[in-house]
């Protein structure tokens, strides 16, 4: 009990414990010196290397965004502007816990977030939503997040998650104008005016160097100041645009009520003297705000879906269709050029038989002897069939030398068969084929049709249809290179092979209205920034037609709304005060309901605006499209002196 401690035996050299403690002490000393040596080496020999790395790590060059320019109507009202939105971005790779927390806080689905996290080009990436930005940067997974959710996510302080403010396109006006304005993708204009004037609208992104400071903050030094984008002043008139959009929608609804499919349509309101577009609408359309959040695959599929009318298509410049009777105004000009008497009398029988083929009037109506002007306003097909036939014969008939016919030449002069040069990307050209084109096409298609002539159409279910197709193939194989009378006659009434866009018809009717100037349609007027640049859209040229001929056509078309095909649509409209010149059209498209056309301008005595309306599978021109034009004119009458 008292002997608690034994005295230490000191046997020096033989003392195992002491020897081993000395070994331990030596070991401690050696390790300590090794660590000290490493520290000294790092802080002397390696110091410069690490200072260089540190400078690189502690310095960050960041982009300073430039504000995208507004797109405004001609009175300065904003059509496309900017608003601040919140975006949630994460540093990749991100752990499941963080994703789960984001799902919880945002109400978004896990699939939606992970789809945005995939990197485009890597295996398994989700097309459409995958990340295509700079590598190594936080990837935006939630865009346009409502403020309360954005704040909640920020306060949650999730690792690797940043909440930042980003500008997104905003459409504060009552107009839709989705197609003409266009949309952005990854901050770049991808369609419409946004694409056409992208460089000016986008401005110049600035650059700043962030260097960390000793207090843990950072100094930001602007290396290059951002230059905000320019404002695009357009020729559009917000109120007119709203009226045109609403009227088109109403017309489509009415046509559908009347049993038509009315799959799409367009309205163009254009200044006949300058080609300045005041309003341009395309149906069906879509909500431009959907691009702000990043499009899902389903949304994109909907935008390009055939059965939904492909809302992404900008019909005024991208839909091709036969011009139908609206083309007769040009046939009239061509007939005058070809020497036919504008003041003569022409027979309007119910049908015309040429080469054993019968060409009928609409509903086989007959008007007897009429003037050309009357033939235009009542839209007598047989008069124009005959003109087409006679011009074809004059050109040599089947043995013609291949030079372009007068009708084709006139149509091309008026701007058909080519692009108009409008300042909106994606315009299609259309075609007004002449003999040479017919032959060229035949060269291409002959083998195919001749094979069909031999082998028939065994895959066709209906034997009658198979027989018809085979006989057509046989005809084409034998004589498809011939420009037949029927071709010329169909061309004369705007059927057959001629295909136009609504905007081309606007240009052609503007030329009739303004006395022969082929204008360049345009929407951009000025780019306004430090300096203002007027966007010139010089006319493409003049037509050869005699101004008096054009005046003759204008007078004839003025009657259309008074006692011609459009008199019903314009009943009660103050035509004395504001005469409207118009031509209706009902285009036949194989296998589809007819396309409704309405080409017009007003006031007829001193034309200011051309208004072109068409509705696909919408029935008669006057009945379906006429009211749209009328609604636009009522609005214009209210606002123009």
């Amino acid at each position: 009990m008292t002997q608690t401690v034994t005295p230490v035996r000191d046997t020096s050299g033989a003392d195992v414990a002491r020897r081993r403690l000395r070994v331990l002490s030596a070991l401690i000393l050696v390790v300590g010196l090794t660590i000290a040596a490493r520290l000294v080496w790092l802080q002397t020999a390696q110091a410069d290397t690490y200072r260089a790395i540190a400078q690189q790590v502690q310095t960050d060059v960041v982009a300073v965004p430039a504000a995208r320019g507004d797109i405004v109507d001609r009175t300065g009202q904003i059509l496309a502007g900017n608003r601040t939105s919140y975006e949630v971005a994460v540093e990749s790779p991100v752990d499941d816990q963080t994703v789960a927390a984001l799902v919880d806080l945002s109400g978004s689905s896990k699939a939606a977030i992970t789809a945005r996290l995939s990197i485009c080009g890597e295996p398994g990436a989700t097309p459409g939503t995958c990340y295509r930005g700079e590598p190594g940067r936080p990837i935006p997974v939630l865009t346009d997040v409502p403020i309360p959710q954005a704040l909640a996510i920020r306060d949650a302080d999730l690792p690797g998650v940043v909440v930042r403010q980003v500008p997104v396109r905003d459409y504060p006006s009552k107009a839709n104008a989705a197609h003409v304005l266009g949309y952005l993708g990854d901050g770049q204009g991808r369609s419409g005016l946004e694409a056409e004037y992208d460089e000016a609208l986008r401005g110049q992104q600035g650059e700043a160097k962030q260097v960390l400071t000793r207090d843990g903050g950072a100094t930001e030094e602007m290396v290059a100041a951002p230059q905000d984008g320019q404002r695009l002043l357009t020729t559009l008139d917000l109120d007119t645009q709203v009226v045109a959009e609403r009227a088109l929608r109403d017309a489509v609804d009415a046509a559908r009520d009347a049993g038509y499919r009315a799959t799409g349509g367009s309205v163009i309101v254009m200044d006949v003297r300058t080609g300045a577009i005041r309003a341009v609408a395309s149906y069906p359309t879509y909500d431009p705000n959907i691009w702000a959040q990043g499009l899902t695959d389903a949304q994109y599929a909907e935008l390009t879906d055939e059965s939904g009318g492909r809302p992404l298509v900008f019909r005024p410049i991208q839909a091709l269709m036969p011009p139908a009777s609206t083309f007769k105004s040009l046939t009239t000009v061509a007939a005058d050029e070809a020497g036919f008497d504008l003041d003569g009398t022409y027979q309007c029988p119910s049908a015309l038989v040429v080469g054993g083929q019968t060409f009928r009037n609409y509903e086989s109506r007959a008007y007897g002897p009429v003037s050309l002007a009357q033939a235009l306003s009542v839209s007598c097909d047989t008069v124009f069939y005959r003109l087409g036939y006679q011009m074809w014969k004059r050109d040599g008939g089947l043995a013609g030398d291949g030079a372009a016919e007068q009708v084709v030449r006139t149509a091309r002069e008026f701007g058909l068969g080519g692009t108009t040069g409008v300042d909106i990307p994606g315009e299609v050209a259309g075609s007004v084929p002449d003999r040479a084109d017919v032959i060229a096409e035949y060269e291409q298609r002959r083998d195919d049709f001749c094979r069909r002539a031999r082998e028939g159409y065994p895959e066709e279910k209906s034997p009658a249809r198979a027989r018809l197709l085979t006989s057509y193939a046989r005809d084409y194989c034998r004589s498809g290179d011939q420009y037949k009378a029927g071709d010329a006659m169909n061309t004369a009434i705007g059927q057959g092979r001629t295909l136009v866009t609504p905007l081309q018809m606007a240009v052609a009717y503007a030329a009739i209205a303004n006395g022969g100037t082929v204008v360049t349609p345009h929407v951009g007027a000025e780019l306004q920034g430090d300096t203002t640049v007027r966007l010139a859209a010089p006319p493409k040229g003049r037509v050869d037609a005699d101004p008096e001929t054009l005046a003759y056509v204008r007078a004839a078309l003025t009657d259309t709304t008074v006692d011609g095909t459009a008199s019903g649509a314009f009943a009660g409209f103050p035509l004395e005060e504001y005469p409207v010149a118009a031509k209706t059209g009902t285009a036949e498209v194989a296998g589809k309901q007819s396309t409704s056309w309405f080409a017009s301008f007003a006031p007829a005595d001193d034309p200011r605006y051309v208004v072109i309306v068409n509705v696909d599978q919408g029935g008669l021109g006057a009945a379906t499209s006429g009211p749209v034009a009328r609604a636009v004119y009522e609005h214009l009458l209210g606002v123009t002196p």
Partner: protein
Amino acid sequence: MSATLTSRRLPEVTRRFDVWILACAVTLSVIGIAMVYSTTWGRLVRDGDPGGYFAIRQTLFLVLGALAAWVVYRLDRPALMALAAVGYAGSVLGLLAVLTPLGTTINGTRAWLTLPGGFTLQPAEFAKVFVVLLAALWLSDRQGMRGLNDPPEPQAVLGVLAATGVVAGLLLLQPDLGSALVTGAAVLGVLFVAGVRRRLLVGLVVAGALAAVGAYLLGVLDAYQVARFTAFLDPQADPQGVGYNVQQALIAIGTGGVQGQGLLDGVHTQGAFVPYQYTDFIFSAVGEELGMIGGLTVIGVFVVFLLRGAAAATRADRFGALLATGIVCWLAAQGFENLGMNLGLLPVTGVPMPFVSYGGSSVIAAWIGVGLLLRVSRH
């Protein structure tokens, strides 16, 4: 009661404790508080909290640690035996508890118990000191009669290995490979000085290595722990992952130079580039802000502390020698591993720098070690 007898027969016992040991521990602790402040105030202030929050807590831990040191310094052998038994049992229970839902997972390791008042307890830190204490008690004899050079009783060796194995196993389950290795190294040191044959020691090291390989193959270790080792072998392999931590620490230390950038003035430290810079990677902040002068001071003071501890062991009786050896080996293994990983010399295992790193359990446990060392140094 026996004090007069003992002091008469053994005049060494009345000697004062070794002031160097205390001075070194205080120095490291003060540097630690300063560095904890430097590495945490910025973030705290940005979040609207008082900038001294962590530094004040660390000071509080130091005070608690000093109190604990004073208590163990005053305990006689029977009381120490009781403390060893209670402390070891408590540690094992604590290590079991962290594996239950009572435990909190931080940085992938389930090592913390939550206490009221915003404090947490890390049983692993205390387990180390009690394992060492237990080993020293068992390998000297029950009465303390065994001579310094007498070989240890085989059943005592077995008991020590069993007690160590239980703790190391529980640590690996968290998983906390670093603490398991440190505990093993400390006990190995005790066995070494206790005179265990070399063949057995080599066998233990080999068994430990095999256990580690086995743990890896059985999947006990988490992917991140394996990654730490592969990152050590090739730091460039994953610069954004584990290698990032070491790379940032090296940048901080490298830019410190001879003079250092000054306390609170290290750009890399204040920019919080180094993860865990107030706990496991606090030496990177020392290196950047206090430079080579500060870094060598920390290393030098730490080495002097260890050598004075070893010297105290040489002068002590068998129990004292083994206890001091255990504490020195424990703190040496932990401290050198920590410095080594900060300097890119050793793989990252996530053990704190004794006295310097922020953490209540770590600080108090180290100071219990100081109290015991001071007690031994009186002989």
